[in-house]
């Protein structure tokens, strides 16, 4: 993988990691009632999901130093961040689906805007990184070609 690609990936990981950490902190601060912004419609006051977001952000940030200097050592953490943001994002999408089903059964209201938590849009923002890490895995981990008799 060339240095420029790694540097771009590093910059993207820095932005994503910082956003995850910021959202996580705001979720915790909102719960404590000391949030500096009135954004509770978009960022829920939930300390545990805030903690989970900070962990995802920290994983991304762990990769930044190596990637920005063009070293591949940061890529595992970029991949780890993608895996974690996928776990979190998919969970919140499933939960949003459950809430929709719930409101449909009870005839209540369903607000898509409220369901689109930061974990979901940050997961969507992680998809380019997912594509990038997949390319890296494919390029580095492709099994070599053994003579056919060695395989079967």
């Amino acid at each position: 993988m060339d240095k420029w690609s790694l540097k771009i990936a590093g910059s993207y990981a820095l932005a994503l990691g910082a956003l995850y950490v910021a959202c996580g902190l705001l979720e915790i601060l909102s719960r404590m009632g000391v949030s500096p912004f009135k954004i509770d419609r978009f960022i829920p006051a939930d300390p545990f999901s805030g903690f989970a977001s900070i962990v995802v952000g920290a994983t991304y940030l762990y990769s930044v130093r190596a990637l920005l200097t063009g070293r591949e050592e940061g890529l595992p953490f970029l991949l780890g961040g993608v895996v974690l943001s996928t776990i979190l994002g998919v969970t919140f999408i499933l939960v949003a689906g459950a809430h929709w089903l719930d409101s449909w059964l009870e005839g209540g209201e369903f607000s898509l805007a409220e369901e689109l938590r930061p974990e979901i849009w940050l997961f969507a923002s992680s998809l380019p990184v997912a594509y990038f890490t997949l390319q890296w895995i494919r390029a580095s981990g492709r099994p070599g070609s053994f003579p056919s008799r060695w395989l079967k």
Partner: protein
Amino acid sequence: MMVKVALIGNPNVGKTVIFNNLTRGREHVGNWPGTTVEKRVGRGKHKSVTMEIVDLPGLYELTASSIAELIARDYIVKENPDVVVNVVDASNIERNLYLTLLLLELEANVIVALNMWDVAESRGYGIDVKTLSELLGVPCIPTIAPKKVGIEELKDEIVRATQKRRVGGRPISYGDDVEMFIGKIETIILRDARLSKYPARWLAIKALEGDERALKTIEELAGPETLSEILSIVAESRSVLGGDPEVVLAERRYNVIRVILERAVRKREVKLILTDVLDEVFLNKYLGIPIFLAIMWTVFYFVFEVSEPFMKLLNEGFIMLGKLAGETKTPLASLWADGICSGLGFVLQFIFPIIFLYIALAILEQSGYLPRAAFLMDRIMYNVGLGGRSFIPMLLGFGCNVPAIMATRVIKDERDRLATILVIPLMSCAARLPVYVLIAGALFPEYAGTVVFSMYMLGIILAILVSLLARKLVPGLKGKPAPLLLELPPYRVPTLTAVLSFAWRRALVFLERAGTVLFAGALILWFLAYFPWGVEPGSGDSYAGLIGNTLQPIFSPLGFDSKLVTALVFGFWAKEVVIEALGILYGVEGEEEIRSVIAASVSPLTGLAYMAFVLIYVPCIATVAAVKKETLSWRWAAFLVAYQLTLAYAVALIIARLGSLL
């Protein structure tokens, strides 16, 4: 035509997935006679041959040192299956072939399934299957079980092997010095017809290794003279071989494996191994534990939130069923509506959180993350007096405490095992989940998932504290735990079929309980709450009310009313009964209604104390019985009940008192 097929292999080699592929889910789960080790038997058909497939426990060796190994060994020797399919992790072939060699010594009709073929390839292994088959003297079939690759070929080979049975594979040569002693013992064994049902060479090798079970068998069948003759040869071998023959033979087996691999396996340089890459993150010194905590929180959040609409749907169904009986003016109509539909029906809806919890646990297990969690927790566990090996049984305790207590058999150190058994009931089992779901949903609707998660965390923290104290204070438990040796399987993408079948099997256990234990509980509770007939259900005039009123003063410092107390009493039967009891005692139908009643009559602080009490107080009767069975002592079972009751009361009191100060 019916043939017996045994599946055997090391743990985490994909044996269960191959079993499911061969049986297509047609299986019967029971216990091996006289033990609590799970026995799975299934049936499959291929080319008009019906196969009875027995899934033997996962193991590394065939010594007599563990129950699982003895079961597998006895099954192969005594039941003499037509075919033994040895499932081998092709990506870890050196270690896995050790068991293969032991099976060949047992003269079993072996077929080797080289599973995880894709993982082996991605790790740079190229295996010459033909050469490997020739060297071992048995057929080898590459398989990728989750993708069903090689399964048809494996079935073909099973059918072929049953039709043309070979006896074992090529015998391993241990070198002239060892072979001389094996030969001498073998001659003695062959001389005695009473030992003829055992493979002579295998029995000779086991005797030379000093295998207690083999020596006992020789003594029982051939008499003490034959045994002493053999023991004198074993003693002679020690001086000639310059060490314990068991160690010498193990070394020679690994030499044989090395020679086989040199000829049949090639390894190329692989730049990237995905498992190593992910481990760098998930086992990271700083990130590992926060990631573990974040994943566990996500699991419980998912379980609580996603099961909610399904629970409501089932609940509505039971309310409709309850109304079929019309007005509940007669005992029979009341039994249907208030006892069965309101009580049992109410608890049945909690099958959804249980299914979702097991789906999440199955994903974590099959992805290979759970052993990593054990590895991560080892240092912490060791410092609090529990080994890392205790972590998996404790994690299983989140599902059900009974199999978790049985799973402590993997812990070889007796004191570590006992300490783990005593803290497992603090792991919040699936039966306690409905109580949290109901009360947290009623009293903390916005943070219900988080409250449920904190109950699980409270269980873990208490388990740590109890273990720490027990290892320092309780006679018989004092001392440091044994160090952890753990094999980390490669990461895998879990398959939908395997995850769903795992969750469904566990759900069936819950349904079975619902049909027996919980149904009986519903009938008894209904009787106690509605009789003498005509009193207000669950009131102080009912039998249940009498029980509650008698015990309530003890619990008044915790803020529990008589209904909550009565529900706790019945929770000893099974923890789900607490919920069933609340449904019947409050005399309302439907989850929403019960939530409203609880929200109106119980303060959030009392609710929190109540959840903590349910988490900690006496485990269900089945768990107490399992503790007695596994410790072979009523003393430890009684100790468990006593300490948990005291701890539950103390923690609930602290929550109630501290909370009221805040």
